[in-house]
């Protein structure tokens, strides 16, 4: 195999690259836009993206070109594109780097998407805490407007595309695409019941596409180098291209590593991320952000592509890979994630709103040494009554840490409960709701 050439991080890893318009153009930036604008019919772009096999990098992995194809044909009236830059899934920090280090790459991607689907107004929904990221995007958009890439009659063509930055204000759920749309409409970010899907009834009830930052950043490269080139990278046909994996936790060299899909967990953790930080051995891995079920060291051979990770019982999700060393208590780890989900449950669906609170109370009781024998059954029953019973996928996500740690490390739960039985008087074993 020839040495692997990075796609998305290539520019920014070039010494001296600042992410300015001049730097981006020097590396071939906005050539894809020039190539298609007024020269290649929009429908052909969608076909190219379909053929490339590009799938969404935001979590669900939906084929991008197919999603675009769901927009009603010959629709008269406004349509919208929203770039999902909400990046709030614990363990994920790739979009932040794509935004802050190479903003024009994603902007060009947005322009190409807008051109393909006939959108004149697009929004970048960026999480509120990314103050620096929003400033960098505003600056990049101002440069792009000056240069005629964004605004009325782009590069003198008939196409007009405006892009605006819209800051969220601290709510994980607004990364869910329909909650994002609600939030952008000026409401609380509560997910909508689907169907109807955003493709027909999205922002302001108009046809809308929501795509992740990394998904969009791939587009200029696909247009420049062709669908066949992209489709051959990674694990075709189902997982083409690269992924930026965000490695965190107990490794020597945490960070964002762009590798072809299909790279094994072992290679990612032990070669790219430098292996374990100390001589404590590996104990657990989360392969795709907080919503993905845990893996054990037995899974190190799993290939990081959509199908292989799903077959092994987890999901590729957002690309956040968290590594835990021996000595980490898995009940404690699951509780930390459960506290996150409890805090972020938007409150719309009863199973999730109430269930997350009960799960946190039960988990905290076990970790604090007040667990009871019946608690494990309670946990499982609660989880089963949340997953699949909510409007959005948050419900499935929140039970993943508990269900998977119970599957592989049940003895750690049992030990905590046994210790509690030996030490605590029965009257102290009441559920107590702590501060959070």
């Amino acid at each position: 195999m020839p040495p692997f050439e990075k796609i998305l991080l290539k520019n920014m890893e070039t010494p001296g690259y600042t992410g300015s318009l001049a730097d981006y153009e020097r590396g071939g930036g906005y050539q894809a836009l020039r190539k298609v604008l007024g020269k290649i019919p929009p429908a052909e772009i969608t076909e190219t993206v379909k053929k490339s096999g590009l799938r969404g990098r935001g979590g669900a992995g939906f084929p991008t070109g197919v999603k675009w194809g769901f927009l009603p044909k010959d629709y008269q009236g406004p349509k919208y594109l929203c770039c999902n830059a909400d990046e709030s899934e614990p363990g994920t920090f790739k979009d932040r780097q794509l935004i802050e280090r190479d903003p024009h790459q994603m902007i060009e991607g947005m322009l190409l998407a807008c051109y393909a689907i006939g959108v004149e107004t697009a929004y970048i929904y960026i999480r509120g805490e990314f103050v620096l990221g929003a400033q960098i995007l505003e600056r990049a958009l101002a440069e792009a407007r000056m240069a005629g890439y964004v605004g009325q009659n782009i590069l003198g063509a008939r196409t007009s595309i405006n892009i605006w930055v819209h800051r969220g204000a601290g709510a994980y759920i607004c990364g869910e695409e329909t909650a994002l749309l609600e939030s952008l409409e000026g409401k609380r970010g509560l997910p909508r019941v689907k169907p109807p899907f955003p493709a027909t009834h999205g922002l302001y009830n108009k046809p809308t596409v929501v795509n992740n930052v990394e998904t969009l950043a791939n587009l200029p490269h696909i247009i420049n180098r062709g669908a066949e080139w992209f489709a051959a990278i990674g694990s075709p046909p189902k997982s083409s291209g690269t992924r930026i994996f965000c490695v965190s936790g107990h490794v020597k060299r945490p960070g964002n590593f762009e590798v072809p899909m299909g790279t094994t967990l072992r290679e990612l953790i032990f070669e790219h991320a430098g292996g374990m930080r100390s001589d404590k051995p590996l104990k657990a891995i989360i392969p795709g952000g907080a919503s993905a079920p845990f893996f054990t060291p037995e899974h190190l051979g799993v290939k990081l592509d959509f199908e292989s990770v799903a077959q092994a019982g987890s999901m590729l999700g957002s690309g956040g890979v968290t590594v835990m060393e021996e000595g980490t208590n898995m009940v404690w780890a699951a509780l930390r994630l459960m506290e996150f989900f409890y805090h972020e449950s938007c409150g719309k669906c009863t199973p999730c709103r109430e269930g997350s609170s009960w799960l946190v109370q039960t988990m905290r009781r076990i970790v604090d040494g007040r667990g009871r024998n019946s608690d494990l059954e309670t946990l499982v029953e609660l989880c089963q009554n949340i997953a699949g019973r909510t409007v959005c996928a948050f419900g499935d996500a929140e039970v993943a840490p508990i269900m998977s740690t119970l599957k592989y490390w049940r003895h750690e739960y049992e030990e905590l409960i046994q210790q509690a039985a030996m030490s605590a008087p029965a009257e102290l074993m009441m559920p107590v709701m702590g501060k959070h």
Partner: protein
Amino acid sequence: MLKETYKAEIDDILSRYPIRRSAVLPLLYLAQKEEGYVSEAAMKEIAGILRLTPPQVYEVVTFYTMFQLKPIAAFHIQVCKSLMCALVGSDTLLRWLKIRLGIGPGETTADKRFTISTVECLASCGTGPMMQVNDDYYEGLTESKLDRILADLKRDGTSPLKSGPFMLPEPMKG
């Protein structure tokens, strides 16, 4: 009044959306910038500008964690306590802060300069433990780095140790 102080900005914001209501988050940010928190008067004014009822603005303010309903300290220290940061020492960071400032999460120093909160993942999971102080991120914190940051903040109101454009692993120098 926001309308007088920020007239041009408000017009610019409104021009970006086909529907006025979409401007609620941007206008709330303006209000918070002006007063340090979102006052009831500001919510009423925003409702007026956007032709909403005040409860329609209030329900939005209370949904999102980044809006303050009461004045808070000059420096709002937000420590990420989600799992990935916890694995590399966010609880220790909270302990260091407690020793230096004498306060824990949810508390404000007597001189009203520092408030500490714990927050969920801020997308710096590879550079934990970390904190956000007002708009700025501070990552890869050690005890001595924290000391320098707190001293800088007290003296200058900001610190050169704040994060710039993010990249990890660190880029090669050009």
